[in-house]
């Protein structure tokens, strides 16, 4: 335990003061990255991204883009390899991880080229002019399928897609399973979701060739270990990568950690362009290629006694990190390693961990980081044990709890839980959460035939990560060779200026959490000042500020570690100021009191203004008392001694602090719509000492809303070909104020003995507890075992309405197409148009590029390659997606002037397609009847986000084609299959067509 000098009185800590951050943010005076001015001459970048989930890049032709006026540079793999290196991969395996695809794209949205231009509009214009030739490959999306012998391989050096496998045994799980009367298990496929901050990534990078140094401003949340990764990838030492962060950041929740490949990419772009380059990610880019939490396949089994006590757990986890093993992955899998027994005293544990690569966005930090995946399996298992053994779920939880008197408690896998009284917290939650009332409501609802359920979740929330936990992915031998990694250095600097006013600086890089307010409270208490007297700066500059590899905003480390470091720095300065005051007041050191902005020695009547004492080192250093060098600036570093490296027998103390949460959730499921409606949600938190109740409540309600989204609405999902299905905020559904219920928040305070202020992290807990608590409530309501997130109404329909019966008169089966690949969307159709013009005229027009250009909706240019081959540049809008495509069309089976087959393919940034159509012309009485049939397959973004509209859109576009053909031929159309006018208006509104 640390012995830490603390202020005698807490005047400000623990109070819900208004935040110092808010006035600026409420009046539009925030300093987010895109609000800050840039140097004159700064150019703007746009990124060309892969429209395929898996493809070889055969060639990139950027000549037309480079020739566009206003374009300064186009950066492709060649430039990135010339000036950069692969991002360091956390495992010693033969894979590389470049910030831009080198010769192969492995996920939809992976960067392929960067355009640097006068402004973003011109840069995006230029993206349309880059031609990339791809050879598409079969993609693998599912982690279990990725392990199959015949699965497509993402990284050839690796042979398969398994990046790492480790097995751990604690105690004697085999014996425990053999001896136990019950073995109860659960299988979980945990999906991907992301906390999607409302502000996206932003970077301004500059390269100084004279110093071979990069200067980067980014709304990153580090530096932490990633600074070293970026410097290496830019081929410079750390002191040649100056990283700065803006004063405000529009949320992160972990996500902005994954900006770092773009820091490298835009840094190289600035070097190539020879000028500063700014890039702000747009939302579509964010949803396809920022980062996301891992999806995980878990098989968990427990050895259980007849009373519900668990004697052993057996974990099998398949972690899917997406297309690359990008730093700090596979950390999501190991962040919870010490916590695999949750809140329970289980001494025998077997763990098998596998890390798998698939054709999806690379994963990274996301609020809860590893916790949601673990607790979903563990707490669903607790509910299953209760059901299978017919025991009250609360009793199963309570019987397995770590006894209250056993803290600090060492878990089987090595975590040292600092403090807690789970039994007391649970009892309070049941009493104040109104569990009996909820049970009565459930009884009443069920008596009326309604679907009502109650779920529980008990969760230990780790915070302040051990920098060494990720080395658990290595074997003890490998770890010994790599050198020890441990600790979690936090730092804070406090300065006193020439009038004695106080400035605090930390490297905690807040993203809305109110760090400045809390630090002003902590430091005001140390000096007997008011929080408004304290200025706090949280902008980071790695060239000038104190920071460590652990600095940054992650693992809920602020309250527990950084605020404590600030208190340590303040108390060191205070000790010096006390010595100065004692000399000035001619008093004893131990009598000095700091209060009310003054310093005295017991008699407030004879006191000195704080500023007078605090400025003494500036004005009269010669008069300082002996032993005081100065009291101008104090930087404290603090790392908890408890955070030791993983041991030779794989005990991993993954985090310093361990908060506790017990949630109760009551839901009602609508019998008609299958909507899950939360009737009440109770969340009991023990986050140690509460520094600012209002902010703790904000963290709880905010974390809950994220978890609600993950539980009921949000999924980052892919088609089997690797196309993204959740590419806009109209597809990736974030809860609004209408879906987010009010919470009943309760507290139980068990101060941490390991942290300076007794505080623990609190920001991530509900992301761990809430998804499974809601799932348990749904399981209780429907009496079902298998629940997969997100719990969409469609997934519950068969349990509420029964399995949909086969139609009595099934529609005739469609002819099976051979065209489409998995994941592509098939479009077929046929139609007829009558044009008042002779057949030959129509025929000629179909073969004339000039005529085609005025007929094809959205065509910019049609070029005749040969008599039977055309190239066309077309802009089409489908749903929210408007894009430019380059199409190659060839004519076959020509039977002039009667019939022709048009076939071809098209490719653009927004998707690809291929298909063919047969056109037949018949003439009668000067009128030509055109009949056509077509079959097409569409992939990429168009298929994913405009997918639901595609069929109708195709019909509209084809209709427009024939309308134009008729007009051009001088006649009128007639007889064409017409859409109802309302549909036409709807499609027009959605921008379908040119």
């Amino acid at each position, binding site marked *: 335990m640390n012995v830490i000098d603390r202020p005698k009185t807490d005047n400000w800590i623990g109070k819900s003061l208004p935040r110092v951050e808010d006035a600026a943010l*409420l009046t*539009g005076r925030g300093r987010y990255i895109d609000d800050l001015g840039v140097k004159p001459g700064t150019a703007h970048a746009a990124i060309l991204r892969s429209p395929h989930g898996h493809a070889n890049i055969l060639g990139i032709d950027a000549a037309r883009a480079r020739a566009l006026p206003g374009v300064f540079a186009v950066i492709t793999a060649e430039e990135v390899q010339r000036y950069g290196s692969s991002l360091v991969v956390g495992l010693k395996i033969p894979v590389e991880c470049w910030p831009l695809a080198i010769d192969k794209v492995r996920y939809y949205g992976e960067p392929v080229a960067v355009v640097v231009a006068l402004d973003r509009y011109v840069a995006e214009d230029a993206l349309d002019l880059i031609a990339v030739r791809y050879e598409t490959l079969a993609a693998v999306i599912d982690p279990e399928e990725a392990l199959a012998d015949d699965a497509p391989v993402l990284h050839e050096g690796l042979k398969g897609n398994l990046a790492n496998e480790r097995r751990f045994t604690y105690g004697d799980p085999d014996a425990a399973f053999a001896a136990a009367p019950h073995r109860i298990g659960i299988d979980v496929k945990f999906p991907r979701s992301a906390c999607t901050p*409302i502000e996206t990534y932003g970077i301004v990078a500059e390269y100084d060739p004279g110093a071979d140094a990069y200067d980067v401003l980014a709304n990153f949340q580090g530096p932490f270990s990633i600074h070293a990764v970026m410097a290496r990838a830019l081929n410079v030492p750390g002191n040649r990568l100056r990283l700065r962060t803006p004063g405000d950041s*529009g949320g992160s929740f972990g996500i902005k950690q994954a900006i770092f490949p773009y820091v490298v990419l835009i840094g190289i772009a600035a070097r190539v362009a020879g000028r500063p380059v700014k890039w702000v990610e747009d*939302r579509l880019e964010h949803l396809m290629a920022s980062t996301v939490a891992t999806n995980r396949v878990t098989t968990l089994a427990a050895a259980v006694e007849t009373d519900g006590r668990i004697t052993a757990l057996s974990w099998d986890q398949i972690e899917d990190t997406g297309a690359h093993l990008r730093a700090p992955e596979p950390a999501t899998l190991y962040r919870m390693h010490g916590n695999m027994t949750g809140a329970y005293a289980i001494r025998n544990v077997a763990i098998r961990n596998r890390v798998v690569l698939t054709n999806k966005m690379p994963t990274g930090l996301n609020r809860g980081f590893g916790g949601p995946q673990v607790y979903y399996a563990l707490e669903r298992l607790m509910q299953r044990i209760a059901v299978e053994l017919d025991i009250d779920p609360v009793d199963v939880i309570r019987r397995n709890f770590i006894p209250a008197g056993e803290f600090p408690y060492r878990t089987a896998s090595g975590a040292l839980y600092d403090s807690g009284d789970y039994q007391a917290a649970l009892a309070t939650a049941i009493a104040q959460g109104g569990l009996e009332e909820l049970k009565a409501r459930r009884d009443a609802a069920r008596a009326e035939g309604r679907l009502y359920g109650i779920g529980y979740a008990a969760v230990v929330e780790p915070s302040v990560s051990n920098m060494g936990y990720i080395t658990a992915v290595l074997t003890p031998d490998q770890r010994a060779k790599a050198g020890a990694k441990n600790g979690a250095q936090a730092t804070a600097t406090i300065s006193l200026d020439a009038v004695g006013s106080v400035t605090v600086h930390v490297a905690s890089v807040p*993203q809305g959490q109110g760090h400045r307010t809390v630090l002003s409270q902590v430091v005001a208490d140390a000096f007997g000042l008011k929080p408004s007297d304290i200025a706090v700066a949280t902008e980071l500059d790695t060239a000038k500020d104190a920071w460590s590899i652990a600095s940054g905003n992650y693992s809920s480390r602020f309250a527990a570690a950084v605020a404590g470091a600030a208190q340590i720095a303040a108390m060191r300065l205070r000790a010096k100021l006390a010595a100065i005051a004692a000399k000035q007041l001619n008093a004893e050191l131990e009598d000095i009191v700091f209060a009310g902005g003054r310093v005295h020695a017991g008699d407030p009547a004879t006191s000195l203004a704080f500023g007078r004492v605090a400025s003494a080192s500036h004005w009269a250093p010669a008069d300082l008392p002996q032993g005081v060098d100065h009291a101008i600036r104090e930087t404290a570093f603090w790392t908890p001694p408890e955070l030791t490296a993983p041991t030779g027998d794989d005990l991993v103390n993954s985090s310093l602090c361990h908060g506790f949460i017990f949630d109760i959730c009551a839901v009602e499921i609508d019998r008609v719509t299958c909507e899950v409606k939360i009737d009440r949600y109770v969340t009991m938190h023990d986050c140690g000492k509460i520094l600012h109740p209002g902010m703790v409540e904000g963290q709880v309600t*905010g974390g809950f*809303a994220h978890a609600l989204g993950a539980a009921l609405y949000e999924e980052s999902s892919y088609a089997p070909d690797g196309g993204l299905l959740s590419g806009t905020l*109209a597809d990736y559904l974030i809860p609004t104020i209408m879906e987010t219920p009010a919470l009943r928040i309760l507290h139980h305070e068990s101060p941490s003995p390991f942290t300076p202020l007794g505080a623990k992290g609190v920001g991530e807990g509900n992301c761990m507890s809430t998804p499974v608590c809601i799932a348990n409530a749904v399981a209780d309501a429907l009496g079902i075992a298998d629940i997969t997130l997100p719990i969409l109404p469609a997934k519950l329909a068969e349990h509420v309405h029964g399995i949909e019966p086969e139609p009595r008169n099934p529609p005739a089966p469609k002819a099976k197409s051979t065209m489409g690949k998995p994941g592509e969307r098939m479009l077929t159709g046929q139609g007829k148009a009558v044009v008042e013009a002779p057949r030959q005229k129509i025929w000629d027009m179909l073969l004339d590029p000039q005529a085609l250009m005025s007929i094809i909706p959205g065509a910019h240019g049609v070029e005749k390659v040969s008599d039977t081959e055309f190239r066309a540049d077309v802009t089409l809008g489908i749903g929210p997606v408007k894009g430019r495509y380059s199409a190659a069309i060839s004519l076959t089976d020509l039977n002039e002037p009667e019939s022709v087959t048009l076939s071809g393919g098209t490719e653009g940034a927004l998707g690809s397609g291929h298909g063919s159509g047969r056109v037949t012309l018949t003439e009668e009485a000067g009128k030509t009847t055109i009949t056509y049939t077509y079959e097409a397959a569409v992939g990429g973004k168009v298929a994913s986000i405009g997918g639901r509209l595609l069929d109708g859109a195709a019909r509209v576009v084809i209709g427009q084609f024939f309308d134009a053909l008729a007009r051009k031929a001088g006649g009128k159309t007639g007889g064409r299959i017409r859409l109802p006018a309302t549909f036409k208006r709807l499609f027009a509104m959605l921008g379908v067509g040119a």
Partner: protein
Amino acid sequence: MPRLNADTRHRVAFALNGRPVSGQAEPRMLLSDFLRHEIGATGTHLGCEHGVCGACTVQIDGGLARACLALAVQTEGADVRTVEGLSPDGGATLSILQEAFREHHGLQCGFCTPGFLVTLDALFRDDPHASETHIREMLSGHLCRCTGYAPIIKAALAAQATLLARGAVAHPDDTMPEEDVHA
């Protein structure tokens, strides 16, 4: 409406928070980009640029609009109100609505906040007695990832109560026929 050439920049002039502003814009330039990068009014934020998140909400001639779905040239001659116009004195003092957000911790990172404020500003102007249900419906067009919304609705209701109590708007019984009063 005049026909604008796509390839040239046009002068656009309108009133922003009561003061005349002008700048140059291509016809395709979004109002959001124009406000932020031509005028320098960076309080209006961009969260999605496809009309879902609501962060860029502004008032154009009193009506609510997504600045990311409007073109700068469309606002020629209009009266535009943004978050910068909500404080009674340019930012030194907070308005009742802004103060309520501060008091009830209705913001964390603050990025989505301007949109919420602009919508509530219009709502309380047009419908001072809006019911909580109606307030929620209006705010359902805004995404916030930090707060979980509970503090936002608390702040909105507190602001409404203060506005009514201070007589910033007249009591419904005095001015409005009964059927117009929300529950």
